């Protein structure tokens, strides 16, 4: 390696915000050689996207850049705007995190891809179209001949990302910047896109700057890795080295943030807390006022037993019906089939009949920003259930229980006078757990409680959930698309696809010997090692 392809030297980016300057990136240096793949890893706010966007000089005007960014020896921070435009899409191209919104919605995809060729290769319309067709085929768009004249909304998220890749590769760039290219996609699609990128890298011989928060992907994909935190580079080195012997505490913490361990099993004769037999949930939608209803069955005959003290994990990709099943178990949605909670058949229970049971079966949702009423204080939010179920409590007693619940989730009880928007995602999720916990429930439905959180925060929430289960003998149904988390937390696991069970069984046996092809595909896509 003589001159590196991209060399970043003491990069610093400041944003002039109305409230004053904020430093987003400082003292960042690294380099990428031809054909190399370097992963830039960090959690949200680490400055990894700002760094990569700075290379393309695509930062907003309020950003001030200092330091050097050398591309094939040429300093991009000094380059003229027209020189930068020559490089963009030609020698350096970029794909983004948001495949759904990164294409112009009003233009056919063929035209959008061809635009790069016309710009940088001065191709005629006909030649460009032929090349676009070839590219679309290479990135695996089915029926490219027909799809070339599609509008973006006619394509799925994965297909749109493939179009973005085709656009980025059109001029055979020497450097591809991939900013979280698979984060918005389902795991199986994610695996396909990564495979495609690797394949194309080999074919075109380009370097890739790969930005991600997912260490699992780094290990699979990159030769070198740089870890960023709060705008600074904390560690860099070859992937193998960093993973084997991380030098910085933060890297070590990130690596350990992979959920580990197994749940101790419950006694085989533990009583059944929740039983579901042949559960079905149907949604009816109507397009037109007087048209017949469209019936869509989201959950198609699922049977499930939950013993007291157990955790049942439900995994599946988006649209598999796992959240719908969860809501039906709590009778937040109407369903067919039989449902028992302890000795009570609650199958047909309406709101009023369910009310006394609600204090015993609680829920924590995914979105820490949407699940707390923005106009109530934390204290009001947590005590709301107490008012419903224990109206006899006086103010002081309610307050005491709220404080206790906040202490249980390791939040300062002084916070109860504050409003949700003043808290971080992890803290909000703790508040949501406190809201459920204050009622002393037996059963807790956890619907992707950690998916919206950064890895390091995720682990602390998972530890908290484990601790609480231990302390109060709680029973969990844990819904997640994250196989590693489910594996660490649950006794039994249920794999869902299209509203049906693909595979169901004791966690370790499912993970060690997946019987179904779909389960294997999921595990492969999530880089779960069956032997671990």
């Amino acid at each position, binding site marked *: 390696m003589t001159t590196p392809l991209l060399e970043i030297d003491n990069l610093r*980016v400041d*944003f002039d*915000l109305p409230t004053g300057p*904020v430093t*987003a*990136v400082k003292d960042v240096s690294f380099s990428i050689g031809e054909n190399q793949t370097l992963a830039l890893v960090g959690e*949200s*706010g*680490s*400055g*990894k*996207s*700002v760094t990569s966007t700075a290379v393309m000089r695509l930062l907003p005007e309020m950003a001030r850049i200092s330091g050097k960014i050398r591309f094939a020896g040429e300093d991009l921070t000094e380059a003229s705007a027209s020189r930068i435009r020559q490089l963009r899409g030609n020698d350096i191209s970029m794909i983004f995190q948001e495949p759904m919104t990164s294409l112009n919605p009003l233009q056919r995809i063929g035209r959008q891809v061809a635009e790069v060729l016309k710009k940088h290769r001065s191709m005629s319309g006909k030649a460009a179209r032929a090349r676009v067709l070839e590219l679309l085929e290479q990135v695996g768009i089915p029926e490219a001949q027909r799809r070339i004249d599609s509008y973006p909304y006619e394509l799925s998220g994965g297909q749109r990302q493939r179009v973005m890749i085709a656009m980025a590769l059109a001029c055979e760039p020497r450097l591809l910047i991939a900013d979280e290219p698979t984060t918005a996609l389902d795991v199986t699609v994610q695996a396909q896109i990564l495979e495609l990128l690797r394949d194309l890298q080999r074919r075109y011989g380009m370097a890739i700057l790969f930005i991600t928060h997912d260490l699992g992907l780094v290990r699979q994909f990159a030769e070198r890795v740089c870890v960023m935190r*709060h*705008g600074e580079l904390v560690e860099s080195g070859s992937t193998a080295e960093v993973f084997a012997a991380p030098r910085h505490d933060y890297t070590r913490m990130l690596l350990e943030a992979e959920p580990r361990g197994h749940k101790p099993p419950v006694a085989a004769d533990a009583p059944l807390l929740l039983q579901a037999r042949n559960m079905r949930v149907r949604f009816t939608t*109507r397009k037109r*006022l007087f048209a017949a209803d469209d019936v869509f069955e989201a959950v198609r005959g699922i049977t499930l037993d939950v013993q007291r003290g157990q955790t049942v994990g439900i995994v599946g990709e988006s649209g598999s019906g796992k959240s719908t099943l969860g*809501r039906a178990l*709590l009778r*937040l949605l109407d369903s067919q089939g039989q449902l028992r909670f302890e000795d009570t058949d609650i199958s047909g229970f309406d*709101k009023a009949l*369910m*009310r*006394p049971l*609600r*204090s015993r079966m*609680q*829920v924590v*949702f*995914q*979105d820490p920003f*949407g*699940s*707390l*009423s*923005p*106009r*109530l*204080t*934390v204290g009001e939010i947590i005590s*709301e*259930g107490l008012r*419903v*179920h224990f109206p006899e409590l006086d103010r002081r007693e309610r307050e005491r229980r709220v404080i206790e619940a906040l202490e249980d989730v390791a939040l*300062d009880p*002084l*916070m109860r*006078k*504050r*409003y949700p*928007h*003043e*808290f*971080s995602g992890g*803290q909000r999720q703790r508040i*949501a757990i406190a*809201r459920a916990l204050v*009622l002393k429930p037996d059963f807790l439905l956890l619907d992707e409680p950690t998916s919206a959180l950064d890895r390091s925060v995720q682990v602390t929430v998972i530890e908290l959930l484990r601790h609480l289960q231990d302390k109060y003998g709680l029973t969990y149904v844990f819904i997640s698309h994250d196989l590693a988390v489910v594996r660490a937390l649950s006794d039994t696991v249920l794999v869902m696809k299209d509203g049906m069970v693909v595979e169901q069984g004791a966690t370790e046996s499912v993970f060690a010997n997946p019987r179904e092809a779909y389960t294997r595909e999921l595990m492969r896509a999530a880089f779960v090692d069956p032997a671990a």
Partner: protein
Amino acid sequence: MTSSSHASTDDPSTTVAGESLGREAWRRLRQNRAAMASLIMLGVITLACVVGPWLLPWGLAEVDWNAFGVPPTLEGNHFLGTDANGRDLLTRSLYGGRISLSVALVATLVSLVIGVLYGAIAGYMGGRVDSLMMRFVDIMYSLPFMFLVILLMVVLGRNILLIYAAIGAVEWLDMARIVRGQTLSLKRREFIEAAHALGVRDSTIVLRHLIPNSVGPVIIYVTLTVPKVILLESFLSFLGLGVQEPLTSWGVLISEGTANMQGAPWMLIVPAVFLAVTLFCLNFLGDGLRDALDPRTR
């Protein structure tokens, strides 16, 4: 932007009591000088219209036989001059303001009540009820409403109560749409689901969660409705189809001023300034409120 999000790192340990969204919005509004100036100006105009006519020596239709068509002057008895019939223009403008402002108040209230109820019911019920109710709104939208209101005034005679009702009945459509949209999107939010999971009653959910969370957009819309309503009323009055003698309104005065503008331009300018300043202030205030309640739009 990911880069700056950690700058506001959540360390809420400094103070104990938090700031509610409402108080935060009020703080932002106070920082908006144009909006605050408008608010004060509107207060002054309202006060003048309510109290002024009692303090001024002239009555609404009182004729000063010594002063026909007198231009504004600081020395005489008529600061803003008189009209061709010798009636004090300031007095008449303030009386006219009463009508305009009362129409604004009542018609906005009418539209608020109908719109919020209609929209909330449609949004909360959802499904077929919702699509039926909204189809009705769609059809109402495409009607040439202004003309039907005029037709109504022609047929039933000009009547201030009718103006209140008619304008309110026109303006509720937007309100209904906004409230329905709010209700629909709130209904899907997880905190509403969490409240259901807690066993909170429907009525409590509506009162404690749905309504407080939709006030923002409703307030914004109300401040947009008020100037529209004032405009509609003065439009009708200008055409001679609104308020009738002996009552007057800014629209009527502007219309009289237009007829006399060659000889007595102040007859046009005085009420026009009243109306324009009020509408300006309302628009500024509306913009300011929108920015304060929904800071992302800035």
